[in-house]
């Protein structure tokens, strides 16, 4: 079996194990995996926009909160069935991401990051203020039933979908274009890439999933209020997991998410007072020492392919057309390897 076959089989096997897991795991273990899947899903979403385009969104939790409140309001106040409400949350988040992205993505670097932070805070404030709909600080009691298994499978499904999407992005022309935006947006524009459209697409994709994940969170947790669904910890986890694993890669958020969940589990139980400090140091250490994440390290050891499929196909195709001159330089060295 070739490398690709191995990968696919491995992937299917993992998914299979995950599907069977609730039958053998204890209640606690299922919840642990459920929450880990939640964080990984968020990390993949963040990766789609911030990892590939370099537009760091520090306010992505806004979409999570929107999704949570959508489910809260639709289910508790209007009696909608929860799967429909969750999907609606995703659609709503994606829909809002269009005008929001249109406005925000015009801003570069720090402006964008800060702007998104303001958006998240503003959305939280809105949830507090719009008492007629969200009940403000009183919060919403979404459900009194304890819905672990359905949420587990829904999250598993979502993670599989977002990972597949990421895989496609990672190996497509679209992904390469996003990466070129990260490398040097002006150069990308000069090369004729419609950066606005690409960025916006990535942004909207990256908003839909938190919308649904937030909705599932609301259905799982049973009670939501502005403070808990717009919490800092979600933003923190998204960023940290993606960074740790490797931003702008296919496996990055998974590796980062899984290892982080495991490390955190041992850490905070040991050091409840220090965990924020340790997390802060961890982020700083990653930025200083392994800014490209674990995936980059694994690549150097050859454990992960260095070439992106699309880039490879392009190179091979152009090499066949010997009369077309030198190979087009759509790949730069670190785009292919990074």
């Amino acid at each position: 079996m070739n490398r690709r076959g191995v990968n696919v089989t491995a992937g299917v096997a993992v998914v299979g194990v995950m599907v069977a897991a609730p039958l053998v795991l204890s209640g606690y273990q299922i919840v642990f995996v459920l929450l880990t899947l939640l964080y990984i899903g968020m990390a993949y979403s963040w990766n789609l926009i911030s990892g590939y385009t370099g537009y760091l969104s520090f306010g992505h939790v806004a979409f999570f909160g929107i999704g949570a409140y959508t489910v809260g309001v639709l289910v508790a106040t209007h009696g909608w069935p929860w799967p429909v409400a969750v999907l609606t949350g995703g659609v709503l988040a994606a829909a809002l991401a269009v005008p929001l992205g249109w406005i925000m993505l015009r801003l570069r670097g720090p402006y964008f990051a800060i702007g998104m932070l303001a958006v998240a805070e503003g959305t939280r404030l809105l949830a507090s203020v719009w008492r007629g709909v969200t009940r403000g600080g009183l919060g919403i009691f979404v459900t009194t039933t304890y819905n672990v298994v359905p949420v587990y499978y829904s999250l598993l499904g979502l993670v599989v979908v977002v990972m597949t999407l990421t895989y496609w992005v990672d190996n497509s022309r679209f992904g390469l274009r996003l990466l070129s935006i990260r490398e040097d947006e002006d150069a990308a524009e000069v090369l004729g890439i419609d950066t606005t459209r690409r960025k916006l697409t990535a942004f909207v994709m990256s908003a839909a999933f938190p919308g649904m994940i937030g909705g599932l969170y609301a259905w799982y947790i049973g009670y939501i209020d502005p403070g808990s669904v717009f919490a800092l910890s979600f933003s923190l986890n998204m960023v940290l997991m993606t960074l740790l694993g490797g931003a702008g890669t296919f496996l990055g958020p998974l590796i980062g998410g899984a290892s982080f969940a495991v490390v955190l589990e041992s850490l905070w139980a040991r050091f409840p007072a220090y965990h924020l400090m340790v997390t802060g140091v961890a982020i700083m250490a990653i930025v200083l020492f392994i800014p490209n994440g674990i995936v980059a390290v694994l690549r150097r050891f050859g454990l992960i392919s260095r070439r992106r499929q699309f880039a490879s196909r392009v190179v091979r195709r152009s090499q066949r057309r010997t009369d077309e001159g030198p190979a087009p330089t759509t790949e730069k060295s670190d785009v292919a390897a990074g």
Partner: protein
Amino acid sequence: MNATAIRGFVLLALTALLLAACGTASPPAGAPPDEAGEETPEETAEGSTEETAEGTAEETAEGTAASDESPIKIGASLSLSGDYARIAVDQREAYELYVAQVNENGGLLGRQVELVVYDDQSTPETGTRLYERLITEDQVDLIMGPYSSAVSGAMMPIAERYEMVNIAPMASSDELFQQGFTWSFQVITPASLYLEGALEIMEEEGYTTFAYIGEDTAFPAALMDGLGQEAEARGLEMVFNQLYPKGTTDFTSLLAQVGAAQPDAIFGGTYVEDAVAITRQMQEQGVIADIVALTVGAAENEYAESVGDAAQHIMGASHWEPQLETPGNPEFIAAYQEKAGRDPGYHAAGSYAGISILGMAVEACQCLDQEDIREEIINLETETIFGPFDVDETGAQVGKTGVMVQWFDGQKEITWPFDIATAEYLTPLAGWGER
């Protein structure tokens, strides 16, 4: 970059392994009895996880006889870090105190009691995970509720699902107990009634109007709704009300609006920091009324220390004061001081009372069967150090009222309920600088 990356990665991995290893070696006091490695069914290259060895007690399902030697485990998840850390520490001290006292006196049902406390970091999802762990992994016999409304709301369905009695000492939100949960019980006065005493005083004195400002979080919002209803019932009028976002530090404009409404009384649904800021800014801006009553915050010693003279004759809504002549109160205070090295506040008192109720119910039915314990609690009508305890079938507290205090020269006097007051309340307030 190559070398640095490898170095950094190795460092991180080593640290992680080291910490995980330290974890299994020696659990520190008060930490969970088992360590936190879990088998994740994913194939990742990362970290070593250890399947943990479970603790000693083998608790069998409810009803069947258990070994007399094994300890009874009571589990709880508290917000030991994060937003609510300060208060939750008091809660843990209170639980530990109770457990120590019970163990000294022969234990519960003749068995020693073991307390298992985890930190939910003030986040609801972590709270749910920990209660799952306590119930399914650690197999605790009994649980006690967490601190905040958000975490409570998240774990009450779990208590329902596993049919375990859940006493939530500090859960004040009325709505928590209006959701149809049958296994959760309230110890503290419902939020909507926090200022009942102030309203009674108003009625006594013939005042008719009041203004209310509060933080836009669970209990002040519930209090606002409660005040609205109470006002109607008593023929009073809430002439101004507004909730401010959590974290507000500048109240000058809000207070200007309050002042403009010229109410007889000004009420605040506050914690300590906003109570302090509001008082100071009222003083600065010259905003005053005949009665000023702020919940929670203004009843704490920190408040008087921070605002100094401005606290004079300000009323605070509390739940418990050391001077209260409830059964066992002085002993509790002395014991708590010895253990924690500081005076207990009402959070400690309420938590102590809550876990005492649980113990009482267990002793009363002489069993660990959750159904029976639940019956006992519903039928229980008693008085603890915290005050009266009586719950209705929804689990809401109906016996306990709040306690109004008023500051006189840096000392707190209880002014309501009238029958246990240590001093008479004083209205109207004189202006700033004239008291």
